[in-house]
């Protein structure tokens, strides 16, 4: 994607995106609702004409050369749609026809891969959301793609369905396929992707590996609940390699340590000083918090109730507030 832009009236859905997806593995394309993920993928698939900028798929621009650019590329945007009055199998054969009739013999294998072979003769109108999603994947696989563009493939699936879908995507990537996976779930991207780009309001906010994203996190890394905050702050100030600060309210302090040894020395020192340690929790900000920071900027603070998807077990959602201070 090169300087890619798409305007709808006065809204810039995609506002100048430059991004290169390396071959191999799953590339996460992460962003909140309305970030422009689907619009970008539509432009990649040649469904929408960019206002300016261009896309290249293995060197070819669908806006210039049409469907020829989609050789080796497959995918879907939003919920995959099929002819409801035809069976899943007939739908796939129809799409195989539209691919030049080369892939009819792949219909059965791909149905098997997505575990729809038992329901292949039922009309798609009778399929559940999860089955349609899997049929969408089958339809993409039919083309024997080298690059697969998936737009929120786990959208609307139950937890089991999500797990199966993710496993499938991981397996495909292991077999050498490149997957561009759009998602609004950080933990999904964390599970599946080694590289990712974070988009918000049509612009790239971060692009790189998961490690590079993690390296961006800074700030306190432990939360201590103690019997005496003032005393604990004083003790912590004397332990080398430890910086401590109080939290706004309760009997808690935040500490930043240089290494695991420093954390251990701090607890020993606190014990010697007669200060009880009620809890000590690792507080590495979750990637999800970083994601919120990157996509929402600084204007959003405070606990964020209602977010239950959390990428690391240590990140209790109620602490989102202090961690972002």
């Amino acid at each position, binding site marked *: 994607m090169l300087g890619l832009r798409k305007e709808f009236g006065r809204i810039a859905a995609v506002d100048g995106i430059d991004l290169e997806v390396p071959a191999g593995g799953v590339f996460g394309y992460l962003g909140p609702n309305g970030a422009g993920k689907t619009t970008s993928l539509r432009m990649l698939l040649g469904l929408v004409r960019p206002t300016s900028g261009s896309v290249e798929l293995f060197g070819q621009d669908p806006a210039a050369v049409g469907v020829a650019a*989609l050789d080796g590329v497959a995918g879907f945007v939003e919920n995959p749609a099929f*002819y*409801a*009055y035809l069976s899943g199998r007939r739908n796939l054969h129809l799409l195989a026809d*539209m*691919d030049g009739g080369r892939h009819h013999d792949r219909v059965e294998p791909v149905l098997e891969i997505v575990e729809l072979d038992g329901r292949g003769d039922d009309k798609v109108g009778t399929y559940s959301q999860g089955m349609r999603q899997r049929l969408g994947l089958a339809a993409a696989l039919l083309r024997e793609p080298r690059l697969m563009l998936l737009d929120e493939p786990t959208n609307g699936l139950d937890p089991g369905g999500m797990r199966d879908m993710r496993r499938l995507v991981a397996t495909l990537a292991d077999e050498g396929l490149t997957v561009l996976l759009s998602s609004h779930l950080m933990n999904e991207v964390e599970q599946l992707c080694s590289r990712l780009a974070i988009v918000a309001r049509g612009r790239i906010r971060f692009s790189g590996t998961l490690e590079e994203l993690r390296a961006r996190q800074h700030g306190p890394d432990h939360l201590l609940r103690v019997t005496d905050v003032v005393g604990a702050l004083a003790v912590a100030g004397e332990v080398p390699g430890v910086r401590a600060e109080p939290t706004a309210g309760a009997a808690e302090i935040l500490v930043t340590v240089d290494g695991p040894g420093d954390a251990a020395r701090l607890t020993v020192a606190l014990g010697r000083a007669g200060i009880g340690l009620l809890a000590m929790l690792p507080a590495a900000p979750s990637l999800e918090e970083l994601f919120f920071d990157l996509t929402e900027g600084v204007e959003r603070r405070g606990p964020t109730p209602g977010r239950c998807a959390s990428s690391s077990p240590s990140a209790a959602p109620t602490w989102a507030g202090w961690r972002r201070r």
Partner: protein
Amino acid sequence: MRKLLAQRRTYLGWVAATLIPAAFAIGLAINPPKPPEPGGPVDPDVYISLAYNSSGLVLPLIALFFSSLVLVPLLCALVAGDIVAAEDSNQTLKTVLARSTSRWQLLRAKMLATATYVLVLLVCFGLSGTVIGVLANGAEPVPLGGVPLGATGFTLGAHEIGAGSMLGRLAICLGAYAAPLLAVSAWGFLFSTLSRNSAAAIVGMLVFSFANQIIAFLPNVPESITRWLLTDQFTAWEGVLGTTVDTGALWHALLVSTLFAVPPLAVSAWWFQRRDVLV
């Protein structure tokens, strides 16, 4: 085309086209046409109905005469108005356009499918009318032909058309009617492409077809104008029934119909090529 074959409405259209002549056969059996007052003017519809007393072979023409305005265009609109818009409302456009078939190829296939549907519909109509008519009143020679009576070409029967020749003329009649029918279907196709809404496109095509035909009934519209509208082409088939077949009128109908069909198809193609698929 195979998608059309899998849809119920396709067959409904064809079955309806088969039933229309049957309905007329029943109507005429219950209420046989009566001869007009001697000396008075004979309207073509009365005349053609009278011919039915002599030969069942005119049944398709009677049915065509009375259903060409609304009924048959409606059956065509059901498909022509739906064929592109349905892909929009089912959101399947994004599915099929992400394959190796270009937009133009897809649209062309849809144009061909629509045309095929319309032609098959007319064949159903003609076959059923002929078979039912013959069963009811026999395949006798038809007392048509003679001196042309004005633009519509119906004449009192100084002349008979033999049964075999009548079958050929029936085919030409339906072929002549197919031309303007395909032309209005092309407009339905355009409405379907632009509106992305089946119902709107179906109504739009019907209104267009109706408007084109109703002009003939307005006073003071000179023939020099209606001749270059689809209006006159819808009745050009009547010229087949004279002493000899009026080939000039048929070619003219074909020409005007083509002139009316090409622009909507071209605009459809241009629009479909450049539009954003956002569903």
